[in-house]
């Protein structure tokens, strides 16, 4: 099956290794992976800032770029949520576009959801020894129902132990532009998350969205915690070679 990898703008700029990890996992699952070179952003920053027109223009761009892919997969619950749940709403009053956009939305998947429920990945290439705790990112969890998928995949790694933190489903405070507009509230929310991570006793927190990663890692380091590692679930699952 032909799978289009939607890298996401944050991974492209900040953490290319997560993109390569996702690529490696999809290939390990037997997919033919296509990475359209013109892709930029899903349009969520504009959409959530009240600018529908830029979001619509970017949605149509994504539609063109991933034409011909059986599936579109992103290593982010947030971008996938935008494409699956919100793209169709943008074109509610435009029946011609709506049909194509809805069809795109239906074949778009968050990475771990796709690996478990579509590609049915059996063997995970990565290895990890020690304990981790898992942060459930909001959009993935509440818009897409991504909860057990990453845990199921992580459980395939021998030597990895999951120690759940308290309130693992509570927002870390990122929220896109919220993190800058309301910096002090966002910081407090990140602070609460850091405390929960540290209280779990795990030396690493794993999650599926780069926005939350930057927020949590940024706050941990400012708090003086240089030890707790913050990892994208794709990095752990893909293992050393993927990073």
């Amino acid at each position: 099956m032909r799978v289009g990898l939607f890298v996401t703008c944050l991974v492209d700029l900040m953490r290319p290794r997560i993109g390569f990890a996702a690529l490696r996992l999809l290939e390990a699952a037997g997919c033919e992976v296509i990475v359209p070179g013109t892709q930029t952003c899903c349009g969520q920053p504009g959409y959530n800032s009240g600018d529908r027109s830029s979001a619509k223009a970017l949605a149509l761009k994504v539609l063109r770029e991933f034409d011909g892919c059986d599936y579109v997969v992103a290593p982010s619950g947030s971008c996938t949520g935008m494409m699956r749940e919100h793209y169709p709403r943008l074109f509610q009053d435009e029946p011609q576009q709506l049909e194509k956009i809805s069809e795109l939305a239906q074949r778009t998947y968050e990475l771990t959801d796709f690996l478990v429920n579509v590609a049915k990945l059996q063997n995970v290439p990565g290895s990890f020894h020690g304990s981790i705790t898992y942060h459930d990112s909001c959009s993935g969890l509440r818009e897409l129902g991504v909860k057990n998928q990453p845990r199921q995949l992580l459980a395939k790694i021998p030597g990895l132990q999951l120690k759940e933190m308290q309130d693992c489903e509570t927002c870390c405070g990122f929220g896109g532009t919220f993190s800058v507009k309301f910096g002090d509230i966002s910081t407090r929310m990140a602070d609460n998350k850091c405390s929960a991570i540290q209280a779990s006793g795990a030396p690493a927190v794993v999650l599926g969205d780069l926005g939350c990663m930057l927020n949590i890692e940024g706050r941990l380091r400012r708090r003086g915690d240089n030890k707790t590692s913050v990892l994208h679930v794709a990095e752990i699952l893909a293992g050393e070679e993927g990073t």
Partner: protein
Amino acid sequence: MQITSMHFKARAREKLRDTQLQQALAKAQGKFVYTRADAILELENFEAHRDAAAGIRDRVIRDLDLYLEQFEKNAAARGAVVHWAETAQDVNRIVCEIADLHGVRKAVKSKSMVSEECALNEALEAAGIEVVETDLGEYILQLAHEPPSHIVAPVVHKTKDDVSDLFEQKHKKPRKTGIPELCREAREMLRPHFLSADMGISGANFLIAETGSTLIVTNEGNGRLVTTMPRVHVAITGIEKVVPTLEDIATLLRLLPRSATGQSITNYVSINTGVKSRDESDGPENFHIVLVDAGRSKLLGGAMQPMLRCIRCGACMNHCPVYQNVGGHAYGWVYPGPMGSVLTPLYAGLQNALDLPHASTFCGKCAVVCPVKIPLPDLMRNLREQQTEQGLRPGQERLALKIWAWAALHHGIYAAITFIAARILNGVAGGEKLLHYFPGGHGWTDGRDLPAPEGRTFRELYRER
């Protein structure tokens, strides 16, 4: 109520530093969130109940005029008088006229958020009428001259010690520290007021169209005294609170207390129907029902209509990570949390509450706990769009968005910008791979470092693969 929502950011900052408030909020969060989680498990199929409740509310709102007329007809048949208030000022005028008509000198009140919208107490006091709040939380706030910070637990921002100090100062009695003793003292202070009041003012959680009744859910029993002891009872509520039948009420009551306080049912559910009849010993001789629009009818038929489903349980604020950290006063009007971030701009003016629809990470928790399935994040996003359309966003923000959108639509330019940005940010960060500061980024870097980019973009590396 005087709106201060335009100062949300500054107020929130202040509240984050208030250690006493933070303790009170942490305690409340535990109470509301975990007890609700347990309470909804008592229902075999909570999701089916939510669907049914949303369906009931939608049905009413679709034919609101019809159900309101039915309500008025049935209420009048039982001797109640229905008044229609188009604005908050109309509410105050109507209630003052009723008070004047019946020669009222003292009014006792049970909790009513709609009366907070109108600042009714101030209007009555200006007309020379003594007003006594009898809900324990509201009574404490009246003594402290503070507005409520939560719609169900108005005094949630205060600690027990605050109340001990306040009672000692205002009641001029020896300081009590135990909760039962504090409650007893409040009851002793309130009892003479119940007995001497000419008018009782209540809200209404629901209006029942088929019987013309008003319904209130309470825990303290003060609501029942307010609605039955004085010779005049005035119930004030929003026009959207009407529900067709008692059967519908049964469905909604399975959800309201569980969602609000995690209770299976409140201590009291009072249904007030008409005036005292000749063979009855209790009840008011005069029953006035004030139905308030104050912005509600404007939502009919528009994108914001789902907000009219709201049954004011407060679950959205109890579960909101922003509310949990800043408390209700930061929101600056009657309704805090996600509910307030939608209602305040709608009822008190979009331009007066520019920050509120943005004060959400869109984590979606409010939408999944709402018992009537109001898509609160979608409504907040719609209000953000309205701000953009009306040119109410800051110029800098609009410019930044325009540049970002333009670049994102031109991948060559986008690739060039990210090529440069990845290198500069990586270079500046140095071996530590963290940025402690960057121009224009203080919103982020005041409280956090920014992990630096790896140095090259994915698109470059992929091309070389």
